[in-house]
């Protein structure tokens, strides 16, 4: 023994703190991680939030093929169309056809004999149908005016969220979705991918020959990811508030509790998945197989209300769907978690399964 002083190992707490600080310092230097973690969610929010900015119904364009000769009925119809929320563009037949062929027209109004016909773009059926509905209504109004009979009444339309509270803004729908997506990618990539890479490249082996306790290393990683999630979520909520005036309608405590539950679930899921791959390439394939279906189908960007029942059913047992439903209920509708028991049980089951797999299958080398 060379010398006796300094034979006591450093305290686990000091090690944990040092390890945590080192994790943050190295993480902050990783530009890719910075982008995907902090910038990407904000870009998504502002990008989609602005594209689908609502407040009033969307302006739709109806292309009207100029009739050979404007009749009184044509003029009355055009006037009624102008009173609707449609933007009417009258074009000569050849130009209208050119526009149609480019695929830019969703709905086109043509004169056929002494009547009319609506042509809808099969690729833009949703917009086309909205335009068609408005055009039909305008047609009824025009006919009533020509006949001197009373105008048909319009049914007033109100756009509202399921919990009757929040506005019709897509950005508001998106915020909880992005929070969930952040958690999912944190678990799958910042935890799972990093674990596989460390193992494959032998970082763990180098640590294993030092007296640093393994649990200290893992706990520091987990603490780091948790602080990343806190920062990321705070940033997103702040951006939503400043950019779109969106705020949490429900209890912040419930919101935070859900985020904690989601973080734990997806963290465990990342560790569990990492045990099924020995190379980064294999893990990339596995994690994408998990990530993309959840990102696209679990309600991050849109709901699957029009999808076949079997698909809705299978997606609802993935962990992200019930998580997002509960998070939206709190954030968008100011609701409690009542009625989300089954969903939260699904989330809990995933958390438990992942945790058991992670603990039983985790490998250092």
């Amino acid at each position: 023994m060379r010398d006796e002083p300094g034979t006591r190992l450093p305290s686990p707490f000091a090690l944990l703190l040092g390890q945590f600080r080192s994790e943050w310092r190295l993480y902050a230097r990783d530009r890719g991680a910075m982008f995907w973690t902090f910038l990407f969610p904000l870009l998504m929010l502002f990008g989609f939030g602005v594209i689908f900015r609502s407040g009033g119904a969307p302006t739709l364009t109806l292309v009207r093929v100029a009739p050979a000769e404007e009749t009184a009925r044509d003029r009355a119809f055009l006037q009624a169309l102008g009173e609707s929320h449609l933007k009417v563009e009258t074009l000569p037949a050849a130009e209208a056809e050119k526009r149609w062929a480019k695929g830019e027209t969703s709905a086109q109004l043509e004169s056929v004999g002494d009547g009319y016909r609506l042509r809808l773009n099969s690729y833009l059926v949703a917009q086309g149908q909205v335009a068609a509905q408005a055009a039909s209504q305008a047609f009824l109004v025009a006919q009533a005016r020509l006949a001197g009979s009373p105008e048909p009444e319009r049914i007033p339309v109100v756009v509202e969220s399921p919990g009757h509270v929040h506005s019709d803004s897509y950005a508001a729908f998106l915020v909880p979705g992005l929070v969930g997506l952040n958690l999912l990618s944190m678990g799958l990539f910042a935890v799972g991918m990093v674990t596989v890479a460390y193992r494959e490249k032998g970082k763990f082996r180098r640590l294993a020959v030092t007296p640093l306790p393994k649990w200290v290393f893992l706990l520091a990683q987990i603490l780091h990811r948790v602080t990343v999630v806190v920062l990321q979520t705070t940033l997103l909520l702040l951006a939503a508030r400043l950019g779109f005036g969106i705020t949490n309608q429900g209890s912040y405590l419930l919101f935070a509790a859900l985020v904690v539950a989601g973080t734990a679930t997806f963290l465990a899921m990342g560790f569990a998945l990492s045990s099924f791959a020995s190379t980064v390439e294999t893990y990339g394939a596995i994690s994408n197989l998990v990530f993309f279906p959840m990102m696209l189908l679990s309600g991050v960007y849109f709901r699957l209300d029009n999808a076949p029942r079997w698909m809705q059913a299978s997606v609802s047992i993935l962990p992200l769907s019930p998580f997002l439903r509960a998070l939206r209920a709190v954030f968008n509708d100011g609701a409690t978690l009542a009625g989300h028991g089954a969903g939260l049980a699904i989330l809990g089951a995933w958390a438990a399964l992942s945790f058991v797999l992670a603990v039983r299958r985790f490998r250092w080398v």
Partner: protein
Amino acid sequence: MADQIRVRGLRKQFPKVLAVAGVDLSVARGEVFGLLGPNGAGKTTTLEMIEGLTPPDAGTIEISGLSWRESAPEIRARIGVQLQATSLYNKITPKEALDLFGSYYPKRLGTDELLDLVQLKDKAGAYHVTLSGGQAQRLALALALVNDPDVIFLDEPTAGLDPQGRRSLWEVVRKMKAEGRTTMLTTHYMDEAEALCDRLAILDHGRVLRVGTPAELIASLGIPSVVELTFEGAAPDPSAFAARLGAPVEVRGDVWEIPTPDPKALLPRLLTAIDVERLVYSQVHVRRATLEDVFLHLTGRSLRE
């Protein structure tokens, strides 16, 4: 001298191969001890079991009288390890890496002192990804020394280094020895083994074939010299020639090797045989026997094969 490392009956079975088949080793304090053998001889597996990285199937390991089962953290605090490949975070600097790894240990050498020792002072603040292979290797060595270790394990420390890099690593190992530390290293360079190691164990197929100082091992051959005949292109079949010469001829690539205890007596007979057989060769060369010959003699194979 007390044994710093004591290994008895070490075994490791991998799914398809018995990597280590009963190894006994004793390394004295302050010794530089080498494990010499070709790839797949079991050097790394043996080393990793002693380092506590791979659990052995059977056998006992004592380091400074401590066993892994009872005193793993204490052993880890006292040993310094350079693995065959050391992977670090991409964007950590040598200074930060030494500070971070140093913080795991009860006592440590200074970061500046270590950077000086491995000549990385001017790279102290460079990201790890930007270091050359040799620089990264030197950082790995510095990391192995960060805890002021009693025992140092180096797995193929000079693989991939240029001649100057190898020479300066040898200097570091000698300095560590002068400070009273014990070093155990693996290598498949016989010149390195000969220049650096006080004692060597020659391994093949997971077994220790022989242990001794380089001089003892070479002397044990009883053949101080080797006559080499070099050919242009592949060497021809030597059986007829060997019969005429009355001495064994071994073929290695484009060279015939004729080990002999007495080159003075062999050479005239050799030249006669060359004349009679009308042998066309490009060079004849007499050299002293090396560890390579010892290895060849013990295993029938070359170290690099």
